[in-house]
């Protein structure tokens, strides 16, 4: 007989609203306890008083390069332990699932990483691994950002170029970020989409036309909107123009780094107001996330952390996000003026939808019991995976 747990005295985020209701969990799933009450005549086994706090779906980070001193792209040899360690420590920021992200790397790295990092369910050991996010190497040289130029590639030979680097087995890949203008044969985005891989457009100089072709061929995401793409131009809005494009078959989800450093608050407000249902908060965190203030080494770079800013030592060049996802949710809430519900869904429902995960990102009956309990300031009180508490303050 499996236990029924009742979370009571709480506000539950459902259908975009906080509702005063109880949440019931059994066998790691959210259940409709009314039916059990009437049909099985079962009482709840455990009742937990949530002290009036909010229960929201657990957070999902679609773009995270590392953290707590680990960098997935630099530490390829020990990537398994790096991912495992990060997965464990992400629980304290309310993350129940994430896509370990690999920036443009040596082609030799990919087959290894794709083999080693498989999708994995979450639990006490850590947040679920929802599949890799391969950010590159098929990106625009001009918009490569911090990616290593010697590994950047084109897609002249279409799918052949893709499989040359990634191999044929894409079962461990969730997202590929690429520049749509490189897909000149118009087959790569289609190929990835048909294999269940989400294509994100980014690190690109694409015209709106190229971006729209990418969307028509199956791309469903935009990688860190405004970053690594041309500035918004009124005569050719480029990838940004996809947000309101009427040619795109459906609105694209778009990632935003809301750490208060990478994107101006005013820009966040603009991004939010265009299409709030499709905004996805990502950290794009680097290995320095979760480390103390001071000097640290990332690969061979010396980095200085001061509060939420990480810069290359001796310069003012930002070198990635060091904020946790829960911090980004709070920042986003404060900056955009959106409701607490919208802020929470931008880190849970929307990324789950972007990945096509029907059982995550919501607290509907039948969903996985992966959730966070937060106070009204969106501070994580506890994190739960499959109905089990995996972190508490």
């Amino acid at each position, binding site marked *: 007989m499996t236990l029924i747990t009742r979370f009571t005295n709480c506000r539950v985020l459902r259908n975009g609203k906080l509702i005063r209701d109880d949440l019931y969990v059994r066998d790691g799933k959210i259940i409709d*306890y*009314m039916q059990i009450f*009437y049909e099985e005549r079962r009482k709840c086994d455990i009742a937990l008083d949530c002290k009036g706090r909010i229960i929201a779906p657990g957070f999902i980070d679609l773009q995270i390069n590392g953290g707590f001193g680990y960098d997935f792209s630099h530490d390829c040899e020990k990537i398994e332990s790096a991912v495992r360690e990060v997965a464990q420590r992400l629980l304290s920021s309310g993350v129940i699932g994430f896509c370990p992200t690999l920036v443009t790397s040596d082609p030799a790295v990919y087959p290894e990483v794709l083999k080693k990092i498989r999708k994995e369910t979450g639990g006490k050991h850590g947040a679920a691994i929802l599949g890799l996010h391969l950010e590159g190497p098929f990106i625009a040289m001009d918009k490569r950002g911090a990616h290593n130029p010697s590994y950047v590639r084109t897609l002249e030979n279409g799918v052949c170029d893709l499989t040359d680097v990634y191999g044929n087995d894409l079962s461990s890949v969730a997202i590929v970020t690429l520049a749509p203008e490189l897909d000149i044969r118009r087959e790569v985005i289609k190929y990835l989409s048909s294999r269940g891989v989400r294509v994100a457009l980014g690190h690109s100089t694409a015209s709106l036309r190229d971006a729209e072709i990418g969307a028509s061929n199956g791309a469903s995401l935009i990688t860190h909107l405004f970053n690594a793409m041309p500035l918004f131009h009124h005569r050719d809005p480029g990838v940004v123009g996809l947000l309101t494009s009427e040619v795109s078959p459906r609105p694209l989800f778009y990632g935003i780094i809301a750490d208060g450093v990478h994107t101006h608050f005013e820009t966040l407000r603009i991004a939010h107001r265009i299409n709030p249902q499709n905004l996805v908060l990502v950290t794009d965190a680097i290995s320095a996330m979760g480390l103390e203030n001071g000097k640290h080494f990332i690969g061979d770079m010396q980095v200085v952390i001061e509060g939420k800013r990480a810069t290359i030592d001796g310069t003012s060049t930002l070198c990635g996000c060091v904020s946790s996802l829960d911090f980004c949710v709070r920042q986003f809430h404060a900056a955009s003026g959106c409701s607490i519900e919208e802020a929470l869904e931008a880190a849970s429902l929307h990324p789950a939808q972007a990945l096509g995960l029907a059982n995550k990102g919501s607290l509907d009956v039948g969903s996985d019991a992966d959730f966070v309990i937060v106070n009204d300031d969106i501070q994580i009180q506890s994190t739960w995976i499959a109905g089990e508490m995996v972190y508490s303050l």
Partner: protein
Amino acid sequence: MRLLILDDEKDVCHFAAKLVKKRINEYAPTEDRPFVLGLPTGGTPKKMYDRLVEFYQEGQLSFKHVITFNMDEYVGLPIEHPESYHSYMWQNLFKHVDIDPENVNILDGNAPDLQLECANYEAKMQQLGGVKLYIGGIGPDGHVAFNEPGSSLASLTRVKTLNMDTIRANARFFGDDISKVPTQALTVGVRTVMNAEEVLILVSGAHKAMALRMAVEEGINHMCTASAFQMHPNAIFICDDDSTLELRVKTVKYFKDLMKVHAKIAD
């Protein structure tokens, strides 16, 4: 028959809740000696349930040893449908209190043998020694539970085909789509309620005024099934001012005079 006239629906419901609390607490139910309570659904009793939940939360009332029997349920409506009476009871009372799911009885409109379901329901009430207190509302045509005009005053729990008035009135709960309204229901009979030791009928709103007049001033008549309670040794109508609009001045004055006494019955 007693008739209590209070100011508004809230007062009606709070008074009813107080009386329910009093009856349960003075009975001091135990596992071997549970209190058997008959319950209604509908608009009027909602505030009564709210009040009962408050009493529970304040520690003044427990449903641990209370056995409930609801009045009715639609046939063929899944229990998780928001308009099912299972849903109503869950949302308004059961999920908030300490009632044992084993002690909850609501007619199963999806039972394979509906007649058997009704017979068992009736038998179960009797096995438990009958219902101590049955609470009901009344419809604008004076119906109690789904005992619409013309129902036998000697009826017991049974399958009832709903008349067009009821179906039309209920369409508002089913997206104004008359084809979605269930056409049959299971309901306790008039005699089932009459068999209870005490009956409490809640009436509120001007649209119930004709029904209240039929029930208390006219003769006993199956065209207003609530009039049957004139023959009940222990029936109380609790109504608000608005619902007395069609009563004679004399009737209202008579019962208002008695409020000095009646107001204390729930204390």
